[in-house]
């Protein structure tokens, strides 16, 4: 340690001791203001520090303690009376001296930071008793700022704007007063502190140069970006620092919490995204950092620390952002346990598993046919393995729907801005899984339905308030599993569907007749018919009358269905039912004559022998009396015109199928039982076939058709209606 260094150390210790003595002396004076010895010790403290600082050339300390010393000298000589006010100023001066000493010891060559300089001049004014009224006020509201770090600023509801104009500002036509006047149009200026620490003395002062600095305490609801834009034109001629009010910290913290992990990135970008910083703040800090890296004087500070030092953001916000960053990093680390696989390879695997399922069925058939009882056990265990492989392979392609859902946050945000509505998107059941191929295809219909809800469903804030609802509307996305299907619901709390309008429009378009006799439910479902849009004025989002029918078609192409429910004034719910996968299903095989059909197993409610006690057919009115309930039915053989074989009057059976609320019975000749069905799409020519959605290859090489249960149930119900309408 050099001699100079050790001298500095002594100065540091000595000052600390003196300042501590000063504080206790001041506190003593509060109870006994006339204790001359205590006053003397106060004077000595300032005097000694000033003298020692002079040895090291610490000018800021000298300048400040000089003023304090003179005041105390007057007190000592009885020229000035000491009172509670002066004691509090002296206590502040003591604290300030501590900071000045710290600054001079830590960075002896750096100029005094503006805030310290400002505090110096403020305290001097207070000490000398000049212009006390204003400065007292401003120092009270600003002094917490000067307590290091910027983290504990007591500006609860106010922005703190620091403007440090450069010398050429006035020459460039930038008038600080103009900006302040404009600022006033955005909010209330609670206080302004004007200071000019580097204005030169008499002849040196150039009246065309700008020496003005401002600290502004500002109340406004405007965003940081908006406030910064006030000084847009001055950006080249002024250092602008805008510190958000403390009350904003909570908002920023919440925004950080809610931030989508995909958006977590660089610290600066995150803070810009939540509005705590502007891009300019970040650029400024980065420049500073780069500069520090070049000059290499001290270790380069992290960007967060620089931002806090620049007083453009509070410590807790930076900390929270860093925490979020860390969490995300960890999440990414756990995610790296996954292997990314080419979807094509996965598709190939699933195809092979499909073939395996078919071959295994063929093998079972042969084992059965030849009555190989010892082979039967092996075949059974292989069967269960094949099942397990099938399930696992399909699971590989299962993805959570949450990611698709959260993409709509952006849609909702943008569209509601565009429409001038306030809409919140609520997401439930994001963890529900379904086949990736389904997810890909559901995106477009979902987008359309959500846009519809936003555009037609949710009313404008005024209408909502008038209807006694909160101004903010909500759209809910919900997903859950139900009997082998996934159900996706889009529910809004808007005005609901207007059935009169729909009917009027449908009649006008010739979709229905005036004496339609449709139920409310059926009327609502008309909106899925082509060429029907009830919105009087089409917007560019939706409302041209194409779309809902396309949505329905797209969903049906996925072997799904869509239905709508609505309560006027309360909202509309659209439910989409989709199969979990497009590849393999558990089927139930039935036969009429020589033809075999597959019914998805989850749609089969029960099988009953025809003409049993529970079940009685009424051919005229076209229903089956099932334990006292009328069940619409179809004879599959007749319906599909399958060739009749003459060993007729076999025993018929009824397969009761259900879809949603609806039930129907399929009358068949034979029940072949459960069958693992690998769905093969029909060729192009069969694409338009009604009520057949696909085919599968059976173990014996024959083909079975997969039935569109939903469509067939509808047909059965219609048939029943038509016949029931006949006079009995």
């Amino acid at each position, binding site marked *: 340690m050099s001699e100079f260094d050790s001298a500095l150390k002594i100065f540091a210790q000595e000052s600390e001791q003196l300042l501590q003595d000063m504080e206790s002396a001041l506190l003593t004076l509060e109870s006994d203001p006339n204790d001359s010895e205590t006053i003397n010790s106060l004077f000595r403290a300032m005097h000694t520090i000033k003298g020692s600082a002079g040895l090291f050339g610490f000018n800021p300390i000298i300048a400040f303690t000089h003023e304090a010393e003179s005041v105390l000298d007057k007190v000592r000589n009885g020229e000035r009376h000491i009172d509670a006010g002066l004691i509090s100023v002296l206590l502040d001066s003591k604290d300030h001296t501590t900071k000045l000493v710290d600054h001079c010891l830590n960075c002896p060559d750096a100029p005094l930071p503006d805030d310290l300089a400002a505090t110096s001049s403020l305290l001097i004014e207070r000490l000398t008793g000049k212009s006390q009224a204003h400065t007292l006020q401003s120092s009270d509201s600003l002094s917490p700022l000067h307590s290091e770090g910027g983290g504990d600023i007591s500006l609860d509801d106010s922005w703190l704007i620091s403007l440090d104009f450069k010398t050429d500002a006035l020459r460039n036509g930038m008038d*600080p007063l103009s900006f302040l006047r404009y600022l006033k149009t955005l909010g209330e200026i609670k*206080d302004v502190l004007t200071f*000019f620490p580097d*204005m030169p003395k*008499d002849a040196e002062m150039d009246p065309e140069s700008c020496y003005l600095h401002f600290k502004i305490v500002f109340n406004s609801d405007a965003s940081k970006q908006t406030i910064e834009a006030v000084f847009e034109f001055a950006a080249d001629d002024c250092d602008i620092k805008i510190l958000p009010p403390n009350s904003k910290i909570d908002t920023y913290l919440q925004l950080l919490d809610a931030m989508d992990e995909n958006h977590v990135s660089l610290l600066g970008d995150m803070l810009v995204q939540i509005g705590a910083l502007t891009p300019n703040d970040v650029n400024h800090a980065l420049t500073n950092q780069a500069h520090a890296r070049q000059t290499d004087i001290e270790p380069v500070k992290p960007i967060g620390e620089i931002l806090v030092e620049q007083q453009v953001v509070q410590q807790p916000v930076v900390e929270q952002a860093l925490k979020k960053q860390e969490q995300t990093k960890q999440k990414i680390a756990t995610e790296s346990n996954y292997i990314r696989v080419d979807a094509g390879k996965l598709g190939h695997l699933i195809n092979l598993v499909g073939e395996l399922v078919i071959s295994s069925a063929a093998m079972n058939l042969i084992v059965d046919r030849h009555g190989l009882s010892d082979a039967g056990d092996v075949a059974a265990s292989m069967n269960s393995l094949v099942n397990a492989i099938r399930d696992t392979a399909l699971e590989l392609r299962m993805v959570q729907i949450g990611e698709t859902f959260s993409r709509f946050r952006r849609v909702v945000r943008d569209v509601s801005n565009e429409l001038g509505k306030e809409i919140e998107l609520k997401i439930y059941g994001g963890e529900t899984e379904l086949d990736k191929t389904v997810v890909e295809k559901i995106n477009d219909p979902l987008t359309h339905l959500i846009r519809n809800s936003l555009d037609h469903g949710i009313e404008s804030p005024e209408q909502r308030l008038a209807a006694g609802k909160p101004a903010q509307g909500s759209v809910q996305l919900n997903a859950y599993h139900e009997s082998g299907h996934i159900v996706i619901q889009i529910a809004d709390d808007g005005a609901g569907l207007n059935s009169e309008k729909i009917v009027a429009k449908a009649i006008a378009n010739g979709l229905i007749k005036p004496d339609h006799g449709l139920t409310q439910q059926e009327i609502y479902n008309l909106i899925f018919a082509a060429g029907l849009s009830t919105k009087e004025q089409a917007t560019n989002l939706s409302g041209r009358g194409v779309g809902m029918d396309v949505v329905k078609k797209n969903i049906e192409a996925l072997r799904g269905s869509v239905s709508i429910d609505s309560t006027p004034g309360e909202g509309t719910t659209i439910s989409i039912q989709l199969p979990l996968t497009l590849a393999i299903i558990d089927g139930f095989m039935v036969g009429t004559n020589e033809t075999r059909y597959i019914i998805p197993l989850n749609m089969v409610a029960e099988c009953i022998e025809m003409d049993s006690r529970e079940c009685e057919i009424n051919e005229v009115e076209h229903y089956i009396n099932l334990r006292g309930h009328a069940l619409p039915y179809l004879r599959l053989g007749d319906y599909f015109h399958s060739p009749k074989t003459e060993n007729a009057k076999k025993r018929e059976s009824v397969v009761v199928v259900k879809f949603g609320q609806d039930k129907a019975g399929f009358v068949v000749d034979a029940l072949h039982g459960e069958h693992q069905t690998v769905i093969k799409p029909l060729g192009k020519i069969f694409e338009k076939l009604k009520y057949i959605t696909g085919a599968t290859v059976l173990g014996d090489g024959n083909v079975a058709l997969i039935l569109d249960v939903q469509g067939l149930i509808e047909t059965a119900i219609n048939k029943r209606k038509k016949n029931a309408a006949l006079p009995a």
Partner: protein
Amino acid sequence: MSIEIKQLKNAAAHLAINGEMTIYTALDQKTTFSECLENNKELQIDLSGVSEIDSAGLQLLLFVKREANERHIKLSLIHHSQPVVEVFELLNLGNHFGDPIVLSANWKKT
């Protein structure tokens, strides 16, 4: 744009500013102020004729105030015109200068 100087008594002067106090006039006005600061112990600046004041003008007044304080010259600003009052109010500077501001009845106080 001119400053009218009346020497009141020994080392006391009355300055009346007419026209604007802006960056365009700051240089000339500063010269006048500096001379007066050299030769007087008491200065009275009449602002009633100030038609416009910008940051440069304000800065000049802040400068004169500081110089006067340092040289123990008694400085008083009197008869603030409306533009001056508006700026002092914007920046909350009335107390800094410590001179009473008399509001004329003709001014619309907003």
